């Protein structure tokens, strides 16, 4: 149980990063980005290509991780520039379908160049790690937790403390009003999508050592829990999405632990679904959001 709680917090941080990406894009463009998680998978292959000695260049882990981060940001940035921006006045559903196109494109590229066989990435840090409440926390888990928390807090602080960040938040509330007071909407939109892409990569690189392997579409398996996390925050709050991630992560791991050895497959997915239903039916504004007047 203790192990489940600890790993729940770690996995929750990952869900949180994905959820923050979903919320950033949703706030700005009113679109659910279905490719949000898959950008991470795609970039795991980028990292794999850079790091792996047999199939790729054999460079250090950190080089691969940085390359993945840059490519992830670029993919998302390019998508915003070339597709989302052109669809400014279009039905939001059409934009969502374009992101489905991106998801399928990334998936098919992974499949074409690396096949469906699972791969694994060398771990950034080896060793047993420290003991917390009598449980060993692996260094990669620790790294994941620290990085997720740092990014969560860092991003929130950036959005609330800088002019540009406030512009991003203002544009999410009312794009027209924000433009009238001089917020550069084009740059705000580019920023949101780029950061969302980068967050997906960070989540993927951090969670990969915990899963151990990856294959085409692997991160999209985390999309539904990440969406549940975003909903817990009401699809509108960055901090809410991150906390939602932690909640969903703990629920996920605890449910897995409780149903260990039971005949029910994937109880954690059922739990995520139930959280989605309960949140939407009872508090659509999010569990953590203040009730609107």
């Amino acid at each position: 149980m203790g192990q489940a709680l600890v790993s729940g917090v770690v996995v929750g941080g990952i869900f949180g990063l994905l959820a923050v990406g979903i919320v950033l894009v949703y706030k700005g463009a009113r679109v659910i980005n279905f490719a949000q998680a898959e950008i991470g998978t795609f970039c795991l292959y980028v990292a794999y290509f850079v790091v792996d000695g047999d199939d790729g260049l054999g460079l250090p882990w950190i080089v691969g991780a940085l390359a993945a981060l840059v490519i992830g940001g670029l993919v998302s940035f390019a998508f915003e520039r070339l597709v989302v921006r052109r669809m400014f006045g279009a039905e939001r559903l059409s934009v969502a379908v374009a992101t489905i196109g991106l998801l399928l494109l990334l998936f098919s590229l992974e499949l074409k160049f690396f096949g469906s066989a699972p791969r694994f990435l060398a771990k950034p840090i080896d060793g047993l790690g420290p003991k917390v409440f009598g449980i060993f926390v692996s260094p990669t888990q620790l790294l994941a937790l620290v990085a997720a928390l740092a990014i969560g807090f860092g991003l929130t602080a950036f959005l609330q403390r800088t002019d540009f960040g406030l512009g991003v938040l203002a544009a999410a509330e009312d794009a027209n009003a924000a433009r009238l007071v001089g917020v550069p909407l084009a740059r705000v939109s580019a920023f949101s999508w780029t950061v969302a892409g980068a967050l997906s990569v960070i989540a993927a690189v951090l969670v990969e050592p915990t899963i151990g392997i990856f294959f085409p579409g692997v991160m999209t398996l985390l999309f539904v829990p990440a969406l549940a996390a975003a909903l817990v925050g009401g699809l509108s709050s960055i901090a809410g999405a991150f906390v939602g991630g932690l909640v969903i992560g703990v629920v996920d791991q605890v449910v897995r632990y409780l149903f260990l050895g039971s005949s029910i497959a994937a109880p954690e997915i059922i739990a995520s679904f139930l959280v989605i239903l309960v949140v939407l039916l009872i508090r659509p504004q999010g569990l953590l959001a203040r009730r609107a007047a």
Partner: protein
Amino acid sequence: MTYRPTRRQVTALAVVVAAIVLPPLLSRLIPGVFTDARASMLGIGVTYAAMALSLNLLMGYAGQISLGHGALLATGAYTSGILTGRYGWSYMFGVMVAMVMGAAIAFIVGLPALRLRGIYLAITTLGFAAVMDAAILKIPYLSRGSAGVELPRPVANTFIFTENADYLALILVITTVVWLLDANVVRTKLGRAFFGIREDERVAQSFGVDVARYKMIAFMLSGALAGLAGAMHGHLLLFVESRTFAFPLFSLTIVAFVVIGGLGSRVGVVVAAASFGVVPQLLRAVQGWDLILGSALLIFAMARHPGGVAGAIAEAREKKEIRAARRQGEEDDASTQPLPDLAALPLPISDTPTATSGPLLEVRDIHVTFGGLKAVDGADLVVPEGKIIGLIGPNGAGKTTLFNTISGFVTPDAGVLKLRGNDIGALAPHQRAQAGLGRTFQLVGLAKRLSVHQNLLLAQHARANYGLISSLAYLPRAGRTEADLEARATEALEAIGFAEFADRPIDQLSGGQQRIVEIACALMNAPDLLMLDEPSAGMAPGVIESLALRLRQLRDELGRTILIIEHHIPLVMDVCDEVWVMASGRTLAHGSPQEVIARTDVIEAYLGAPTLAGVGGVPRSAAAGLGRPAARGMGG
């Protein structure tokens, strides 16, 4: 009388015959060209088309986004597979039970739609599909480990549909039937109710559509078709497992079919889906690039034509029309044309209201709170039969909230609502519409993207008294009723002088024209009480004068009772028999227009604290000015 088939029936028959004859014939005549592999490829195109039709009915017609249709397809495939493969049922019964199961699961998936809309509903469907994929399809009874489910080909007497070309003929026929059913949905009240829900649920309810019921019908019909499509697909592949309808890619791909084909366009989605089935297989030669090209094309197509194939075609046609109109120098802004003779509208004769002793509508002590805000705080209202009653008051007084409470969109915390002495407080909005409450909305209550003609048909929803089966099969009963409704709609178009705009979407009319159509639609149901929410908004001054004339005509010649929210005081003074004044959620005063407008407390409510000039009545001009508060059109 000899039977003369319609052109539509002849075409349908020709298509069915071609579907039966061509694939088997071609595969035997030119086996080198029409190979087994190619027949299978075409078969996939056909099943994809059936899947797209199923989702289009739900998303395109009824506007309910489903991101988890793969779960329903899997339901159909597994059901039919288990029944035919493991228990030896016939194909026909296997597929029929697959449809029932598809409808049943879709019912469950659709339940949240009673509370949720748009993206939130979409997310629940995605979540359900995740559960289906990760948990339900992994149940050993269904999955048999990773062996999946085998689906044998159908058998007719001694003939087995082993050849792909023969099976292709079968599924082509079934899909053609689905197409015809779909066409029947669109041309009956069923489709119009779906469109109404898609466009605006409140408007649909005000026309008497039971939104909850039709939403569930949309889900279940779509689910039944998905069950059928999934089963046909499975029997084509001979085998399904959890990766056949891989979550979430498969579900999302069908969404792409429907959006790229153009939401609601039957032709568009079938073309899009069939090409997605066939083209990648043609690209097999370029191993692995098929999906890459396909998805890149999808992104490109969306960025270029967000409305999909159908949207692009419509856009091109529109441009052509606009160019043609410019050439003629046509000026079609009719916002200043006087209001047509509403009394000439074809009201059903039997519906002339019968006099009763008490008041028509009685509203007692209504309280409504939103959050902590008391929107209506003890309002009374009595509407006697055959009168025009005005409801006035400053912005934010609670007039529109009271209207919404009467028509059932807002549930009051307390209070009594009686129509002809019967308590209607427990009735749903569509039931109140059917009980004789007709209304218009501040922001024009019409299905904006439907044509004038379609709106006039939708408005008669409650009069189309035929059932679901009649709709789907277009039985004579439905045909006869539709012909009647058509005739009335055409008559109404003539009466309001909109014959030339019949096929124009509402959002391409001027504000004043929209009002006219809206009032005409409200009258199509021959309501006992017609409630108008700021009818003069958006009308030119000259038109407002004709509005007064028409309202009196409705009262005097047709015996209608009218309750009207109006800011334009001269109009109120002109037509109302009695006026009720609301302020801060309460009914402040009522009486004849002259009496009410002279009361100091009424003036206070409009203008704030009493001033010297306000004591003892106001000049006519000031009273007229009351009608123009700053934030027009938003309050009430």
